[in-house]
């Protein structure tokens, strides 16, 4: 077993944005006043988080809103830099943080597949090889040469999901976006993620839905106030979380029915 994701004492500090001097005018005035016009308020979204994930593990990040789950995910996905600490990721990641990032509504589905693929870091040739499979999975053969602005939101999401999961990554990072398309397509997505897990892929999953966490992940990490509260087998961690103040006594009924997806195209 090899460590595929490693976080060593990772901390992330945010400066609260409304406190930040945003225009030259404010900076300029600040020079004359001799002290900063705005007091910078700091907020630690993550504090000394250390985590090792082995290849083939499927790990859930759980915790209340504002616990630092999304920040951790974004740091691992390299979207933001940690303030302190080190992150090491081995292999290719595909992040389902935003489906269809960079989709353009004036381009056809086909053009968007290649554009989105290259944004995720996959070359022209690679996308060419997977093109038919992507379109078949998304069930969009009929519309693939139509401009995206004529598609329904669900169709756009389906294409985004198909691309992100078809590129055969080593690590799949998802932020609560299994609610793609209708009932049967959601089922298909879940099956695909499970199949990915079975073939040895590593999954990092952020969710508030304890049912899909239990269903999908064998290990869970409970984050609160930017610190790890508990790390271990899903059953124990979820039980601990639900028993705490933050945990909801009744988990949501079905898989991610509450998630409202927005996609900007």
């Amino acid at each position, binding site marked *: 077993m090899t460590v595929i994701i490693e976080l060593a004492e990772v901390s992330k500090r945010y400066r609260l944005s409304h406190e930040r001097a945003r225009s030259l005018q404010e900076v300029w005035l600040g020079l004359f006043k001799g002290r900063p016009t705005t007091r910078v308020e700091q907020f630690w979204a993550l504090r000394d988080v250390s985590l090792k994930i082995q290849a083939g593990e499927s790990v859930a990040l759980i915790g209340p809103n504002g616990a630092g789950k999304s920040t951790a995910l974004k740091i691992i*996905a390299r979207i933001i830099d940690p303030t302190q600490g080190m992150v090491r990721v081995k292999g290719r990641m595909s992040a389902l943080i935003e489906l269809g990032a960079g989709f353009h509504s004036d381009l056809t589905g086909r053009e968007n597949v*290649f554009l989105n693929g290259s944004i995720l870091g996959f070359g022209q040739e690679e996308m060419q090889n997977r093109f038919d499979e992507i379109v078949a999975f998304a069930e969009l053969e009929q519309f693939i040469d139509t401009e995206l602005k004529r598609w329904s939101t669900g169709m756009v999401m389906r294409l985004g999901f198909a691309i992100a999961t078809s590129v055969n990554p080593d690590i799949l990072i998802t932020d609560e976006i299994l609610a793609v398309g209708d009932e049967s397509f959601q089922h298909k997505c879940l099956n695909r993620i499970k199949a990915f897990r079975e073939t040895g892929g590593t999954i990092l999953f952020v969710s508030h839905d304890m049912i899909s966490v239990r269903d999908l992940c064998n290990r869970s990490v409970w984050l609160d106030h930017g610190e790890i509260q508990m790390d271990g087998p899903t059953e124990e961690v979820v039980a601990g979380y639900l028993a705490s103040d933050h945990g909801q006594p009744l988990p949501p009924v079905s898989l991610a029915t509450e998630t409202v997806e927005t996609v900007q195209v």
Partner: protein
Amino acid sequence: MIVTERNTDVVTIWATAEKQNRRYPIRFMVETARRLVDLRHYRDLLRNLVTRDLKVRYKNSIFGFAWSLLNPLFLMVVLSVVFTVAFERSTPVENFPAFLIVGLIAWNFTSSSLSRAVNSVIENKQLVNKVFFPREVIPASVVLANFVHFVLAIPVLVVILMVLGVMPTFKILLLPPLMLIHLELVLGLALFVSCVNVFFRDMGVAMDVLLQAWFFATPIIYHHWILPLWLQKPVMANPLAAIITAYRDILLLDRFPDRNFTLGALVSSTIIFAIGYAVYARYAPLFAEEV
């Protein structure tokens, strides 16, 4: 995420080390240069973004690509009329329309690149916030899309010049290297202004004024000869002035560009590019938090 290898590539982010690097300029420069070389893995992305830009811009327009020529042509006609009819005595050079169109097409590339690049990072916040990729491809793709227009405009320019009675000669072969210097200059500036605009939105607002000032400070609608002697040197220190004068030397006067001006333009464009890229590389990791 390195594309070519699989399972072997190790991506390491070491925030604290990166910050220490900034205290050692040499190491920072080496890191930045390596970053530039690593960009080759993202050439597909760059190409796709450029094609997206080109396709989308003219998707529903009738004149399409012609628009990028209509603007300089219109200005050429207006300025020719104004200077040859209204201020007849001050007509500075022979074949004034030909003189104008060369400078205006070159200027059009510069100004349209910069005025679109300055907002490019902010406009792509959805991407910056959600996906990792080298952020420099965003302004670079805007500039390259405009450069494609510039290149496509050259044959049209040659035809216009022939209509105006100027026959280009073999010296036109000097055009590509000059255009690359021009591209380097615009890329460096685009990286710088798009980065500054993320942190200070004033940049986007100031861009119009700055471009206008630069337009008049550059010998585009006048010749630097008409300036007083003491002013000629500082004006020609502007790399764009040297580049546009060189374009005219090649296309209109059938002579080699002034060596000192051209070398000066190459050196200052390279310095501007290096500074622009270093600033961009230094602050790009903060974009996702700021946009």
